[in-house]
């Protein structure tokens, strides 16, 4: 889901340490609720802390909450560079 538009990355395109703002979440309803409960909302600032080895999960920080999620789920979250 790579995009050439710098303001329309998916979360998995970020580099470790990079910050962005969530602009859209393309998840099905169940996952959408789960993501929202953990703080994945439009307009929320998000920072990629690190990636797991062997294409492992992503460690992200939303405000005071740290969350890990797989690449597949990170692809569903669209962010715009800050």
């Amino acid at each position: 889901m790579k995009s050439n538009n710098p303001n329309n990355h998916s979360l998995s395109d970020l580099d470790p340490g990079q910050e962005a703002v969530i602009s859209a979440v393309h998840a099905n309803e169940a996952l959408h609720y789960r993501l929202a409960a953990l703080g994945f909302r439009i307009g929320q600032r998000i920072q990629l802390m690190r990636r797991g080895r062997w294409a492992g999960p992503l460690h992200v920080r939303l405000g005071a909450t740290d969350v890990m999620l797989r690449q597949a789920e990170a692809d569903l979250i669209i962010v715009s560079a800050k």
Partner: protein
Amino acid sequence: MKRIALLGMPNTGKSTLFNRLTGSSARVANWAGVTVDLASAKILLGGHIAEMVDLPGIYDLHGFSDDEKVVRHLLENHPIDLLAIVVNATQIERQLPLVLEARSLGLPAVLLLNMADEARRDGVQVDTERLAARLGMPVVLISAKYGIGQPEAVRVLAQSLADAIEIGPARRAALHAALSSDDSIERETAALMAEAVAIPVQLPEQVSDRIDRLALHPWLGLPLFFAAMLLVFQSVFWLGAPLQQGMTAVFDQLRQVALEPLAGHLPDFVHGLLLDGVYAGFATVAAFVPLIVLFFLFMALVEDSGYMARAAFLTDALMAKLGLDGRSFVMVLMGFGCNVPAVMGTRMMRERPLRLLSILIIPLSLCSARLQVFLFIVSAMFQPALAPWVIFGFYLVSFATMIVTALLFRKRFRNCEPFVVELPPWRVPTLGQVWMRGWLEVRHFLVRATRFIVLGVIAIWLLTNLPLGAVPGSAETLAGQLGRLFAPILAPIGIDAKLTVALLFGFVAKEVMIGAFAVIYGLSGEALAQEFARNMNSVQAISFMLFTLIYTPCISAIATIRIESKSAAFTALAVIWPLALAWLTSFIFYQGMRLFAGV
């Protein structure tokens, strides 16, 4: 030098304004009575140098979040000559209450309506003159982002600061009065928390991040985690072995000094049943309780610190290849304590195939009950220096059986469950928390002891002593006949008739097995261990332990699997598959060793 404080809600552009007004001259400093560092800078206002402090963004001056407390303490403990209140003009309705709260402090104030450009675009029109008149403070529309209205803001700030008279004792008293009820609520909350609530100490973010840099390191993370687990098992051994020997000695003494004289006049059959059956069985199992409690204390420490969630992060990529995820790995680790809560813990997974595959592998984890059996056998059969490594080897075998099982069954339980899990900050577990876990384990053990172990050892004693007149433990007894019945299956893996009876009862609860050894051999303590070692070689012992590790979940675990899976067919699979795998593993090991090592 006069002091201006910037007050406002989060995300109002307060810090942008601060940076714009102060340039890059800001420094971060520690303020007396305030727990966090705040940015402040000296700026030139109307020919005078003033100090500007950027307060943390807060929603409520009378609130009790950390940031709200910081702001209140700073206002109380440090003289402020002017409050510059920053409000997001597009959300003015929601933010005005904070302005009114600030006004009631009686400090000179200026209201800066930020994001004026956006507000205008949204059609929000603010009559600044009327607002200023009603509030009793100057109001300026600005846009910190674009610098709009900045000269006007600077002029008004300078003017207000020049007008601001020295804050006398009366106004200070008014300020304190306005905040004193909050302070007393804060104090009372703190007192109540200290007295009645224990919360684990959460490490500051920087410390937590520093630990994560190591614990979640791409290369070092996993080795570090396994080293930590190895350390846990080693510590359990070092600390637990002397305790266990002490318990054994106490139980032996109690029997010789008190129980033998008391029971001396009872008929032989009753005497045997009570002392060689119930007491010997129970004492042998109970001697291992300190080790198990220690094990659970250490596991509680690992879990409550936040390391388990890191383990899920570190292992998720590998678990994904097995059709599982990082949470399955954490459940497997929990299963090392007891399989039952671990099977129940899979409820957090939503997709059924993922849950079932996790439930299928969890009973293969070497639970504390099996650990008791292995500790007994290993300490009877191997040198003390070698013992921990043999036990560690069995943990590796336990992992290997899970990997084989997952690889074989992942296609049948294919899933695409999303993996989105919170990563909690590192915490220092409280003693009370850890102690509670240990206590729960002891209680759990006592419940099992009364339900299964005592009944189990009585049944085994009867099997090894009936029919009346048979030599106890010989081939004529019921146990001997059972052993003969199973010999065609168990002899090829090196398990003799006596151990067969123990295995049958291990099906009820694995702890019963060592109680069973005591009853079957009619011995306890040191004598039992010696007799045990005389009866088999180390290859047979390992074959027996391999079979015990894998062969079948205990009755409680099977019942839990049935309830959680809601499927009799799946439950049957969860019993039959490990049995087959256990027999094959032991067969290959035992016959392989006989063939190649000539044992």
